[in-house]
């Protein structure tokens, strides 16, 4: 019984999603919003369960369950909360977007819930089997969700690219796990950690962990395993992209934290330095490519790559792993809030124009047409840029701080420099929204309204961005 309590949040999501699959049959096609509301209700339940996990385990003990397959600690509970909130945020966006783009289907919500359940499970993983199963559990529904807007070719193309490369990356992941198992004779992360702490880190284990890094690096879009990211984020429906930038990244990093930061990886110098190099490459290429984009959606895709680089810097900071893990989880939460705010704007724009064109000109003069959208977008972009007083600054500060205290001064410096470069492309959008007028768009078009649920979501996300920027202690206290 206690075992079940430990994974109550994903349990609620899995069982609820299965039940929802049946309920969905009874709901007419023009009332699929009901399914969305039920799904949100389920996520609220999971949210409450996660808060309870946090509350009843105030001492922050690591509790194991299901023959050490899963564990529950602060990070797991916090990530559960993050995933549930992301899910609710995305579902609020779907109410208008999916209807306009004719992908308002019950299965959309069921699959998203399955995916969220897999991500929550990933946060609780204590064994490589759990990591593998959880990874596939959240990935396979995502392959489908990318292609849900078929027969639109962009959507199908993004789905196939994600699927083929994802399966390819899974191959490396599985082979890596096989080698790690071969080196240690166990799949349990804690047991592996003990062996490594005793100084037994054979090359086979290191290479296995390296191949696992490939598989997980693919999920979080680390250069050079990032190539799918811009195409898939670009082609997928915007609500799905919003889900992927925030939740997939968090799930991937949850696994990286478990295996590399809190697990055996942190004790192997060559792995740590390899992660630091990946972090550097990811920052550089993510930001450079983003500079060249004319489409806001694609720009945000590259920006999400760049942010994976900053996060990887946290994974490579192993001097004080508790501090680094805090910084990474905090950053994931801030990035989720920021990114949801930005994609909220994108999905509304996509609904207004009834297409998926996110060229800069679509944002020209937005401040005049939809001041609310323009301000939310500006706030989100400032936060992505790392402007002080926004969540993005606090998050970056904590990450770079832990990098510096781990002796990775060069990486922190690179992070700061690339953040400055990023100001160029974020600012370009702001200039287009606020400082240019668009003569071609009729301002009185009745489509240019903002839907209430999206507005609620964007307001909450914006408040979170500002609150986490002004008073990061609010969240950070939960770590201590």
């Amino acid at each position: 019984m206690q075992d079940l309590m430990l994974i109550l949040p994903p349990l609620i999501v899995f069982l609820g999603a299965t039940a929802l699959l049946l309920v969905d049959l009874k709901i007419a096609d023009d009332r699929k919003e009901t399914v969305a509301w039920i799904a949100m209700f389920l996520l609220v339940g999971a949210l409450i369960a996660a808060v309870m996990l946090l509350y009843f385990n105030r001492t922050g003990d690591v509790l194991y369950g299901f023959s050490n397959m899963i564990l529950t600690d602060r990070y797991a509970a916090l990530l559960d909360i993050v995933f549930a909130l992301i899910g609710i945020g995305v579902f609020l966006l779907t109410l208008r977007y999916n209807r306009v783009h004719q992908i308002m289907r019950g299965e959309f919500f069921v699959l998203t819930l399955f995916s969220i359940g897999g991500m929550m499970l990933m946060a609780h993983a204590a064994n490589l089997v759990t990591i593998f199963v959880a990874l596939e559990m959240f990935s396979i529904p995502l392959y489908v969700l990318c292609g849900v807007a078929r027969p639109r070719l962009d959507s199908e193309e993004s789905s196939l690219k994600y699927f083929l490369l994802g399966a390819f990356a899974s191959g490396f992941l599985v082979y890596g796990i096989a080698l790690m198992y071969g080196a240690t004779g166990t799949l349990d992360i804690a047991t592996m950690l003990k062996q490594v702490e005793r100084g037994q880190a054979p090359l086979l284990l290191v290479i296995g962990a390296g191949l696992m890094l490939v598989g997980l690096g693919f999920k979080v879009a680390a250069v050079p395993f990032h190539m799918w990211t811009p195409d898939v984020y670009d082609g997928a429906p915007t609500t799905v992209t919003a889900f992927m930038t925030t939740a997939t990244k968090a799930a991937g990093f949850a696994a990286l934290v478990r295996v590399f930061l809190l697990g055996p990886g942190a004790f192997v110098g060559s792995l740590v330095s390899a992660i630091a190099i990946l972090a550097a490459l990811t920052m550089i290429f993510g930001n450079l490519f983003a500079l060249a984009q004319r489409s806001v959606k694609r720009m945000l895709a590259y920006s999400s790559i760049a942010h994976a680089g900053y996060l990887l810097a946290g994974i490579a900071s192993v001097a004080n792993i508790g501090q680094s893990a805090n910084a990474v989880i905090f950053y994931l939460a801030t990035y989720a809030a920021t990114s949801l705010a930005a994609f909220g704007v994108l999905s509304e724009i996509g609904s207004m124009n009834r297409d998926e064109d996110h060229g800069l000109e679509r944002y020209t003069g937005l401040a005049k047409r939809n001041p609310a959208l323009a301000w939310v977008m500006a706030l989100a972009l400032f936060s992505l840029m790392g402007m002080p007083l926004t969540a993005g600054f606090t998050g970056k500060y904590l990450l770079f701080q832990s990098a510096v205290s781990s002796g990775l001064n060069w990486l922190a410096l690179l992070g700061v420099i690339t953040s400055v470069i990023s100001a160029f492309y974020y600012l370009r959008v702001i200039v287009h929204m606020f400082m240019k007028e668009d003569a071609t768009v009729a301002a009185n078009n009745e489509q240019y309204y903002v839907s209430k649920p999206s507005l609620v979501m964007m307001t909450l996300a914006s408040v979170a961005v500002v609150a986490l920027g002004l008073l990061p202690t609010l969240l950070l206290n939960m770590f201590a």
Partner: protein
Amino acid sequence: MSTLVVLPILFPLIGVVINAFLGKRLGEKVVGALATLMCSAAFVVALMLFSQVSVSKEHAIHAEFGTWIGVGKLNVPFGFLVDSLSSALMLIITGVGALIHLYSIGYIHGDPRANRYFVYLNLFVASMLVLVMGSNYLLMFVGWELVGLCSYLLIGFWFDKVKNAEAARKAFVVNRIGDVGFILGIMLIFVTFGTLNYHDIFAVVGDHKTAALALAGDPVAPAVLSAITLLLFIGAMGKSAQLPLFVWLPDAMAGPTPASALIHAATMVTAGIYMIVRSNALFHVAADTSNFVALIGALTAFIAGSIALRQFDIKKVLAYSTVSQLGFMIAAAGLGAYTASIFHLMTHAFFKALLFLAAGSVIHGMEHYSHAHHSAQHIDPQDMRNMGGLRGKMPVTFWAFIIGGLSLAGLPPFSGFWSKDEIIVAALHNPLVFALLACTAVFTAFYTGRQLVMVFFGSARSKDASHAEESGMAMKLPLIVLSVLALIGGGLNLPGSMWLEHWLEPVVGVHEGGFNLPIAALFSALALVALAAAWVMYRDGKRDTSLTPQLSSVSSFLNKAWQIDALYRAAIIMPFYALSSFLARVFDLGGIDGAVNGIGTLTKGIAAALRPLQSGFVRSYGLVMIVGVVALMAWLVINTR
């Protein structure tokens, strides 16, 4: 007592919130009045705090509102520090700020975005107060970024003009370069001292009067301190417009004139000076950085002063003069004359705000004719070549300009004379800095005289000038108040009383500067001669009045601001362009579109060079992944024990 400390920040913030949300309903007049009222209220509280500081034993009020960030070793309180230095600056910010708010009511009247303008102004005052009142470097940085944001918003306020949006972006980007230095400096401070609070850091550095280094025994300490101060100074270079980062300030004049007066002349640009003076304990022990600071300051003063000699735009002259005067202050800070630096900062705030507001009044008056007659033929109302003879038409503006100008020129008994003199005296032991500053002083007097004559004397050179009219009361009143301040501001630190010197002693320590009668006499005489020369050269209204002048090579060099923008273009932007177009040709045989300019081309170049890598082919993506796998495995095989 501690709650009083937040009030100066809170009042303008209330103005921001009310005006931002209800501005449209309240109407322009109420918005302006409310904003002015809030700033004045902040001034009143600042006065109260000032008096409390003067009677308190330790000459400082600390107020902490709990922990702001507490993670691991990093523990930053949400704390404010009002001591003699910050209270003095608070008076300037809120006082001059309130006057400029008042002036703006008249100036911005009729602009459709007036509400937004007052929101920005209030926000700016609040942010600047955060900057000077914070008790730690992180809070200073927050204020630092916020004022940068306000400045960006105000420069681009009339964003319909492409030029203004570009100027705003230039300011933003150049300032970000400085900010990188600043944030790195802050991080290095934290790594070195384990804290960001002024009090703790300066306690570690030790009693700066004896320059005893508490870190003694640690051989890297001096080098680390040099690095810290140098990084901080890079931040100051950006915000206080020093070489080589001063290029943004002259362009920043694109914003509304009162905003230029407040931000780009009187307050924000002095943030760098405040930061250096606040960190004087660090700079004091880092002698090599201090020398560097003094030299950069003097060079900036000299170069900007020489540029101002050959400008035609009334605001450009003042802008370069601001850069030049900031150079004076920075040089003083580098020379260790912190009091003199703050003294000049204060008098400069008075007379430069006055000059800018007067210039705004002139521009306003010049625009009168074309507005009234809907004249199709637009002349530039800011070009001094179109002015002349405004003395009789705008008497109050004229006298305000005269007082401000003579103060800038450094003529006794105007305030600028006293503060500039102190800096020059402090520079006596550094011949190079002294020579540069002396030349600059002469330049200053000359271009001020040239400006006065071109604008107010002679006869009108355009219809707009001959039909110019004096501005209204809301604009005249601040001019009068500021004129009085510019006239008597020198009294703050008159030889004999040295009030400011004693006031700042708890923060910057004792500094035996002072009055040197021969120097004072010499520089008064030089200023008089330069002014007279300007009078003689420009009195007849013939010189420099052609709108399409044949400039000599020297003049053209100065007019184009030492070709520094062109230099940056040639040295930095063009090579990037060349490189990127080369890459573009290599990677994309189809060739790229024709050249546009500057950064736009750079981005396009990078785009053209890199984007083919993202070819769209799944198999290529897989190939890149495999390259990564092989490289990663090779790295691991080589580097694992």
